[in-house]
C-alpha cells in the first residue's frame, strides 16, 4: 500500500524542492549582526566527569553497532528469508531460510516471550519447530477446543515461496493440533512490509500480522475502528471474520472457528424477547449477528449478539452478551405504523470506515473532548443506502474553546524558573527566566527532563491541536450529523 502513494509523494517533494527559496545569506547576516542571536550557553550543570566519559563510550559503541548493522543488513538482502508470524494470544515470529530451517525466533508480545522461554529452535526444520511451539501452546492452555484459532502471517520477498510456506505451515499446525485432539481453525495471510501497519503494531504492542488483520477487518466491517478491535483475541477476530460475507484481501480461512464458549443465537434472541415480554411470533424484521462491544472507558469489551426487531411499533436494538446472554445495551425507537422499514440489507464491503467517519465529523465542527464522546452507528435507510449516524452528547463542546488555554500557557512559562530552551513559548520566542543564573541544584536528571519535554511536549501547553478551520465557527453545528458510508459526504437532513 505504501508503494502506491510514493508517486504522489515524490512529486510533491520535488515540487517543494524547486520552490523552496535559499536565504542562507540573510540568516547568516542576522546571526552575525544580531548580538542577541549568539549561541546561548546552558546553565552550568554539576555533572561528574566519569559520567560524561561513560556516555561518550556508550555513544561510540552504539554508533559502531549501528554501523555494523547497516553493513550487515544491506548485504544479507540477497539471501531468501521468510518470516512466519504466529498469533494466538501469544505472538511468536520465526525466520526461515531457503532450506526451511529456522534461523531466528522472536516474541511479538509478552505472552510470546513466555512461550519461547527455554526453547532452542535455531537450526531446526520448520516442521519440527512448529510441533514444539504448538505443543507448548496447547499445554499452556492457549489453544483448546473452545479457543482453537491460530493466525499465520507469512512475509517473504518471493510470492511463490510465500504461498508454499503458507500452505506448509497451515497443514502442519492442523496436523499437530489434531494430534492434540483439537480441530484447528486457521486464518492465514500473506503480508508485505507496510509502514502504516508497522506503526500501528508498535503503538498497540502486537505483531505486524495481527495489526494487518485488524486493519483489514476494520476496513471491511465498517462498524469498528482499529482501536476498538485491538483488544480482541485471535479467536474473537476469527469469529467476527466468520460473520463477514467476503474475506479481506489475501486472508484465508481453514477449518471452523469454535463458538463453544458462546450461547446459541436462539438463546440470545430469547434473552432479548424476554426483556420486552414478546413472543417470537409477535416480532417483525428480525436481524441477528455477532459483533463486538467495547463500552467507553473500559479496557476491553466482549463479544455480543446484535439483535434487532420490531415489536409493538417500536424498533428494538440489543447487544446480548455472547457468553451469558446478559443484556449489555438496549436502544429503542418508535417506528411509523404505516411504513415499517424493509429487512436489513447486508453490510457493504467498501465503507469509508468508522475512523474516517469520525475524522469527517471533526472537520465538520464536532470537537468532543475525547474519542469516546462520539456515538457512531452504521445504519441503513429505506432505500438501502448505508450511512454513519454521528451523535455527540449535548454537553460536549462543538468547535471547542482552544483559544482560552493559550493565555494560561504564558503565565505558566513565566513563573517557571527553568530556562526551557527545547520548548519555545507559544509566541515563538525562547524567553529565559529573569534570573539568568538560575540554580538548578543537583539535577542529574536534567537531561531526562529535557528529553521528556522534547519527546512529548506538555500536552496541555503549546502542543494544542491546530484548530479546525474548515467548519464555520460563527454558528453552532448540530449535535447530530449523517455521513454517507460509501462516499463520506455529509447528508443534509
Amino acid at each position, binding site marked *: 500500500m505504501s508503494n502506491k502513494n510514493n508517486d*504522489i509523494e515524490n512529486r510533491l517533494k520535488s515540487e517543494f524542492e524547486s520552490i523552496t527559496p535559499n536565504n542562507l545569506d540573510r540568516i547568516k547576516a542576522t546571526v552575525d549582526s544580531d548580538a542577541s542571536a549568539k549561541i546561548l550557553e546552558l546553565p552550568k550543570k554539576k555533572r561528574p566527569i566519569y559520567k560524561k566519559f561513560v556516555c561518550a563510550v556508550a555513544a561510540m559503541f552504539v554508533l559502531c553497532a549501528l554501523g555494523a548493522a547497516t553493513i550487515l543488513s544491506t548485504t544479507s538482502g540477497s539471501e531468501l528469508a521468510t518470516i512466519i508470524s504466529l498469533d494466538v494470544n501469544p505472538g511468536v515470529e520465526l525466520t526461515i531460510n531457503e532450506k526451511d530451517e529456522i534461523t531466528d525466533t522472536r516474541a511479538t508480545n509478552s505472552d510470546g516471550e513466555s512461550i519461547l522461554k527455554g526453547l532452542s529452535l535455531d537450526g531446526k526444520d520448520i516442521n519440527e519447530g512448529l510441533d514444539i511451539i504448538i505443543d507448548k501452546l496447547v499445554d499452556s492452555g492457549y489453544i483448546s477446543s473452545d479457543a482453537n484459532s491460530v493466525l499465520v502471517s507469512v512475509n517473504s520477498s518471493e510470492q511463490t515461496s510465500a504461498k508454499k510456506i503458507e500452505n506448509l505451515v497451515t497443514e502442519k499446525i492442523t496436523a499437530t493440533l489434531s494430534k492434540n485432539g483439537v480441530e484447528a481453525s486457521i486464518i492465514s495471510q500473506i503480508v508485505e512490509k507496510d509502514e502504516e501497519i508497522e*506503526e500501528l503494531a508498535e503503538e498497540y504492542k502486537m505483531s505486524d500480522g495481527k495489526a494487518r488483520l485488524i486493519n483489514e477487518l476494520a476496513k471491511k466491517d465498517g462498524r469498528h475502528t482499529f482501536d476498538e478491535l485491538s483488544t480482541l483475541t485471535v479467536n474473537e477476530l476469527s469469529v467476527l471474520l466468520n460473520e463477514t460475507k467476503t474475506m479481506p484481501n489475501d486472508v484465508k480461512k481453514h477449518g471452523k472457528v469454535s463458538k463453544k464458549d458462546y450461547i446459541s443465537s436462539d438463546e440470545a434472541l430469547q434473552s432479548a424477547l424476554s426483556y420486552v415480554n414478546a413472543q417470537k411470533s409477535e416480532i417483525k424484521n428480525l436481524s441477528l449477528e455477532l459483533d463486538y462491544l467495547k463500552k467507553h472507558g473500559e479496557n476491553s469489551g466482549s463479544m455480543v449478539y446484535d439483535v434487532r426487531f420490531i415489536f409493538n411499533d417500536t424498533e428494538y436494538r440489543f447487544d446480548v452478551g455472547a457468553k451469558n446472554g446478559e443484556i449489555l445495551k438496549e436502544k429503542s425507537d418508535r417506528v411509523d405504523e404505516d411504513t415499517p422499514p424493509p429487512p436489513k440489507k447486508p453490510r457493504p464491503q467498501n465503507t469509508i470506515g468508522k475512523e474516517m467517519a469520525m475524522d469527517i465529523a471533526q472537520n465538520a465542527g464536532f470537537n468532543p473532548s475525547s474519542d469516546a464522546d462520539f456515538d457512531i452507528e452504521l445504519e441503513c435507510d429505506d432505500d438501502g443506502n448505508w450511512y454513519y449516524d454521528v451523535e455527540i452528547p449535548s454537553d460536549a463542546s462543538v468547535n471547542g474553546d482552544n483559544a482560552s488555554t493559550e493565555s494560561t500557557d504564558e503565565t505558566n512559562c513565566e513563573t517557571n524558573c527553568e530556562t526551557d530552551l*527545547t520548548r519555545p513559548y507559544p509566541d515563538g520566542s525562547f524567553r529565559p527566566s529573569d534570573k539568568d543564573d538560575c540554580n538548578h541544584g543537583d539535577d542529574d536528571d536534567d*537531561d531526562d527532563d529535557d528529553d521528556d519535554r522534547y519527546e512529548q511536549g506538555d500536552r496541555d501547553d503549546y502542543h494544542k491541536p491546530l484548530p479546525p478551520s474548515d467548519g464555520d465557527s460563527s454558528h453552532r453545528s448540530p449535535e447530530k450529523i449523517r455521513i454517507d458510508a460509501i462516499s463520506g459526504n455529509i447528508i443534509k437532513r
Partner: protein
Amino acid sequence: MLSLLCLTLSEPKTAKEIIASRDELLESAISRLANGDKDALGDLYENARVSVYSFALSIVKNTQDAEDVMHDTFVAVYKHAKSYTPKGKPLAWILTIAKNFALKALRQRSRFSSEEEDWERYNDQTNDEAEQGEKRLVLMELLKTLSEQERQIITLHAVSGLKHRQIAELLDLPLSTVLSKYNRAIKKLRNELQEDASDV
C-alpha cells in the same frame, strides 16, 4: 571487509537510507554549532530548509510568511543548538520550533485577512515564479482540497519523511487520527489528479 564497504557504498540508497543520512548530517551540524562552529549553519540549512519551508507553508499558506518563519526558525536553532540533546530525531526538534513560529505568524495574519485571501495570495505569487505548468499541479491540488491537518500531515510525510508516529507527536494527534487523515488526504489527492488529467 573492504569489499563489503564498497558494496554498501555503490548500492542505490533507499528512501530510508537517505533520511537516515540526512538525520546524521543534521545532528552533526547541530553539535558543531553548539561547539561554536558557525560554518555548520550552511550544512544545517542545506539539509533542513525544504522540510522547514514546506511545513511552514502548509500552516501559513503564503510564501512571504513561510520565508519569515524559515528565517526565524534557523536563527532560533542556531541560538539554541546547545540545548538540543542528540536523540536521532533532529528534524522533529527543528520542526517543533518551526511550528511555533508558524502558528504565531498565523495568529498575527488572521487579524487582517480571511482564508480565501491567503490562498489567492499564494496563487498569485507562484504564478510569478519561473516554473509553471504540469509540475505545479500536485501542489495546487494539495492546497486547495485538503483540510488544515490533512495538508500538514501529507507535507510532513512526503517532504520530510516523518513517520506517522512522529507526525502524531508533532501535531499532538492520536496515531489513529493521523493514519486516517493521511489515508483520506492521499485518496483526495489521487482523485483530484485523475480528474484534472481527464479534463486536459
